[in-house]
């Protein structure tokens, strides 16, 4: 479903602030894989998701989504294949537009946007049904501006938007990190449910080791611009936080100490 082959990316090359963010990253995902990604700050987790999304071109390597080489495609063209939810709840939605308008924008991902009216009565009915499943009372607020919603509501809406048109790949970039624990748990549960219902292939970056263990069928740990640990199948099911910490120190030859992960 997704193939990353020898991806390299350096920011600000040949300058004092040079940062080699990805150094020969390789990753292959099977259809239906739900992979959680952990790693220290600057390990390249978000950089990997941005490379897949096409936020900027990679220096070298190849990115293939469902058999299509997207390495040279601009961000908006790759959007056809991708559903994305970001860390900052502000990023995923248009604050000054209505809930239904945001959904209508997402509904047309991958389509040519012409002079047809931007939202139909039929869609509106579908949106109501879908919003009801979120259980946040948004179904009665279709015409409310998204800027009026709380962070958790916005993330739930973004999640809905990301999966309204079934994506080949769902990218969740620490999408619960900016939420309070209770809301974060709700949004995580919603993510689980949506991924399962649609049988989606998903990548989820998280800073929380417990979440990384509890969710998905595969866990990868990144360090220094590539993957240092890849745990799947039965091994993943039996994994504990202690195992993970121990495996990390073996894999990287250092203690996993410089990170928020230990605290949660």
């Amino acid at each position, binding site marked *: 479903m997704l193939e990353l082959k020898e991806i390299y990316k350096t920011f600000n090359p040949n300058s004092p602030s040079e940062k080699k963010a990805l150094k020969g990253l390789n990753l292959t995902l099977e259809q239906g894989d739900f992979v959680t990604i952990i790693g220290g700050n600057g390990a390249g987790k978000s950089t990997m998701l941005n490379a897949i999304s096409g936020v900027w071109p990679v220096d070298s390597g190849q990115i293939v989504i469902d058999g299509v080489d997207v390495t040279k495609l601009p961000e908006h063209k790759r959007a056809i294949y991708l559903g*994305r939810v970001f860390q900052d709840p502000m990023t995923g*939605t*248009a604050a000054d537009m209505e809930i239904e308008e945001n959904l209508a*924008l997402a509904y047309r*991902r991958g389509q040519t*946007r012409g*002079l047809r*009216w931007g939202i139909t009565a039929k869609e509106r009915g579908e949106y109501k049904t879908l919003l009801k499943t979120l259980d946040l009372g948004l179904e009665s607020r279709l015409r409310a501006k998204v800027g009026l919603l709380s962070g958790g509501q916005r993330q739930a809406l973004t999640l809905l938007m990301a999966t309204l048109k079934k994506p080949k790949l769902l990218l969740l970039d620490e999408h619960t990190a900016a939420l309070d624990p209770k809301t974060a748990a709700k949004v995580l549960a919603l993510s689980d449910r949506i991924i399962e219902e649609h049988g989606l292939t998903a990548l989820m970056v998280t800073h929380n080791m417990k979440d990384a263990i509890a969710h998905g069928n595969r866990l990868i740990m990144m360090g220094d611009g590539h993957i240092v640990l890849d745990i799947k199948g039965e091994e993943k099911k039996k994994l504990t936080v202690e195992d993970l910490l121990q495996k990390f120190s073996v894999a990287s030859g250092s203690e996993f100490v410089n990170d928020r992960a230990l605290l949660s």
Partner: protein
Amino acid sequence: MNVTALMKAVPGSVAQGLIWGLLAIGVYITYKVLDYADLTVDGSLCTGGAVAVMLMLSGYNPYVALICAGIAGMLAGLVTGIFHVAFGIPAILSGILTQLGLYSVNMRIMGKSNQAISVDKYNLILSLRDVPKAILVSGIFCAVMITILYWFFGTELGRSIRATGNNENMSRAQGINTKTTKVIGLMISNGMVGVAGALYAQYQGNADVNMGRGAIVIGLAAVIIGGVLFGKIFRNFAMRLVGVIFGAILYFVVIAIVLQLGLETTDLKLVSALIVAAFLAVPYIKGQHRINGKKGGKANA
């Protein structure tokens, strides 16, 4: 202040406000919808006026001339858009470059710095000689344009332009080509400005190479006055555009008052700049107070 003279000047202010209101709607599209400070306006206003006047002087129907003025404005917007999205030039600088270049283009179109067109010899759409008619005609233009724009910004394409101005990252993540939407927005905006230029040139009876100088500030004044005074009442998109037109009319009424107070016409640029600065300052200072108030509230709790 001579109130009688002021009352006599008001209808003219309304007519000018309606004509410049079209320009202000153009500014609204870039400044508010696209979140793009486009300075092309100062050049494209004159381009619209120049194209319309030259075509009418060559015997073309005034409505044909008007449409061509709109197209000329759109081309100016296209150039600014290409500077920005294809060459990576910052938004403000792209507009400044086009505006500067247009000076030469406008001189080429007109052949000299001023081309007069007399309402006695040509069949003009409107003129300051007949102010009530000018108000009626420009009022109809505003109504038609607002209707068209209301429809357009409700379409899939229109909504994707609004999304681009609102959240560019989200727009790209939803598959919107934000380069294209920006260029289209700039073209629509400057097309409106071109039409405004064509009407204004007819209203004052000439196209002048300097007629657009400071136009962006007048447009901004209308947008900001409209937003500050009517933002709370007019929430719907079409009504916001109506608010912008009201803003433009108010601006010209204020200018008429200022002139009655004895200021020279050459003082008007300073007055305009100060009006815009004042109306920009109001929401900012209010915001500052709100932040301070919030902080205070937290400290007490």
